[in-house]
């Protein structure tokens, strides 16, 4: 079995800065990380691998620097990393992104064993764009069933049974056959840290495969900005209001300090 995990590199900060002129995220000086939900996706893939045996393949579409998150995924225990990178991919919205990802998955399947069963796991959404659209669009592109917002999953031969979060409070249990795609929420597991040996292996003994538009035989009209059917008009960071103070110490000390602060501000 192959498990494909789609990951995205996102800025690792809670407070984002936006260049007002270009309407894009300021990335200088900002650390990049694996999108948090995608780490859950990797963790799930690794636990399934440990239990049932599988090859875990991690894919990302992004600039060459996104290689870092693929190495981190391998350090966690994934088998291989694939970076889809090309200037022509730039400016892609969710539609163009899922098309591009689907080409890579199809290519990998075709070049190994097209009959092999597979599962695609995505994080439910990315903290930067926050649309949650790529997983369902990718399932459509691949023509496979999908279960979104998965909280738990059982794999049995070529069948999966998943609990899915529905309308915030309900849980729906869904069964489907492989191949399939699921998207996961952060409640599903706690992602592991890569061990040091894992980190060394990811850098010394692993190769990342690069795919550009040509390698994927991509239709130019369907990738990057050209292939995007949405257009960003304006993007802005929410304004931070008021002065925040973080209290530290034991619970008692924090409570004491809080009371003192409230007294000082004449609230108490």
């Amino acid at each position, binding site marked *: 079995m192959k498990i494909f995990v789609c990951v995205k590199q996102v800025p690792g900060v809670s407070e984002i800065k936006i260049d007002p002129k270009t309407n894009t995220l300021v990335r200088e000086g900002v650390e990049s990380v694996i999108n948090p939900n995608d780490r859950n996706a990797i963790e799930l893939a690794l636990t399934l691998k440990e239990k049932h045996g599988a090859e875990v393949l991690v894919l990302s579409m992004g600039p060459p620097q996104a290689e*870092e998150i693929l190495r981190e995924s391998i350090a966690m225990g994934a088998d291989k990393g694939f970076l889809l990178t090309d200037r022509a991919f730039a400016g892609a919205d969710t539609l163009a992104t899922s098309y591009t990802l689907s080409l890579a998955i199809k290519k990998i399947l075709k070049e190994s064993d097209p009959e092999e069963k597979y599962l695609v796991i995505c994080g439910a959404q990315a903290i930067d764009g926050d649309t949650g659209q790529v997983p369902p669009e990718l399932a459509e592109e691949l023509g496979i069933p999908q279960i979104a917002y998965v909280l738990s999953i059982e794999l049995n031969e070529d069948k999966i049974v998943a609990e899915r979060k529905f309308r915030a409070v309900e849980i729906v249990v869904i069964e489907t056959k492989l191949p399939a795609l699921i998207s996961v929420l952060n409640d599903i597991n706690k992602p592991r840290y890569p*061990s*040091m*040996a894992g980190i*060394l292996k990811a*850098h010394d003994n692993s190769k990342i495969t690069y795919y550009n538009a040509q390698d994927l035989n991509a239709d130019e009209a369907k990738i990057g900005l050209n292939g995007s059917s949405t257009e960003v008009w304006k993007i802005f960071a929410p304004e931070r209001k008021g002065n925040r103070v973080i209290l530290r110490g034991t619970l008692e000390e924090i409570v004491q300090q809080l009371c003192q602060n409230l007294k000082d501000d004449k609230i108490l």
Partner: protein
Amino acid sequence: MEFTLTEKQKMLKKITRQFAEEFIVPVARESDEKQELDDTVYQKMKEMNYFGACIPEEYGGAGLHNDTIGFGIVIEEISRADAAWGITIAVHNGVAAYPIYKYGTEDQKQEFLIDLAKGNKVGAFCLTEPNAGSDAAGVRLTAVKDGDEYVLNGTKIFATSGGIAGTLLVVAKTGEKDSRKQMTVFLVDSKTPGYSVGVKEDKMGVRASNTSELVFQDVRVPEENILGGAGEGFKMAMKILDFGRIGIAAQCVGLGQAALEASIKYANERVQFNQPIGRFQAIQWKIADMAIAIESARLFTYKAAYLHDKGEQFGMASSMAKLTASEAAMQAAHGAVQIHGGYGLMKAYPVERYFRDAKMGEIYEGTSEIQRLVIANNLLRKGA
């Protein structure tokens, strides 16, 4: 010359920092008060391979034996969270596991190294005695040959992790004359009859790190447990400490970094006279001086590590790094408490702990005076 970290080193730094912030920082204060390392953290550190940081994979380690800068980075990030964990991992790797890898026989590696690298056992390096501190040649613990065994008698003090160690590197006197050519390093299993742990020290800083007295009464050790050759002990101990000091330097850099970051944060937050205290030049200069001291120490540490990995002489560089870094950490911790004012003295703020922890760095693995002595002797011997 190249000043950027490799991608691998960057990831080691990032992951170790995330790990340390999630697991070590939240329990650091409690561990300091309890004078004990947290057991959950211990298990996690094991899983992460920190106990085998600078040991090759074939012996159960993580594989940084050729990347001492990477090793330093790991120690630095752990120490930024808790200097007590920093010293524990630095000593375990630097002066216990690594010397066995570097100087041990294959049998010794199989018997002792693998368990250390996997973190199944903790290692300790035992040189200091009541009458042999800076004067390491003054060791009185004796090892007398009896058939193909040696019988050890005496007392060691101030051994880091001594009380929790499963494997000890013991520097003993194997000859009558009080000479540097009569010393030998033995590998001793803590289960050996006659060995016992004495007083556990109650100390000012790095309190969670175990520092213990160790008692040897007719402890019989097979000849095969000699590390590096009989009579080679003094030279061996000095070589072991040369490498160990890189780890201590990194530990101090991490601690200093924590003090600096706490200071910057507080200087931006604390308002007096209607402005953040960071607007006052007196505070700004302190912060600038702290940053300069720490960055210098970091570069020194990396340089010593670099020389080690290139196979060049690195003893003087590691002395310089350890001296610079321990004094930088002390300066930073001192400044951090001052910047925090009265709050800096309170347990609720970590700078109080940093201050106590920082002082230790100027003492262990050779005091600042001894480092200066080593450096000066090196220079004077070479001549101008």
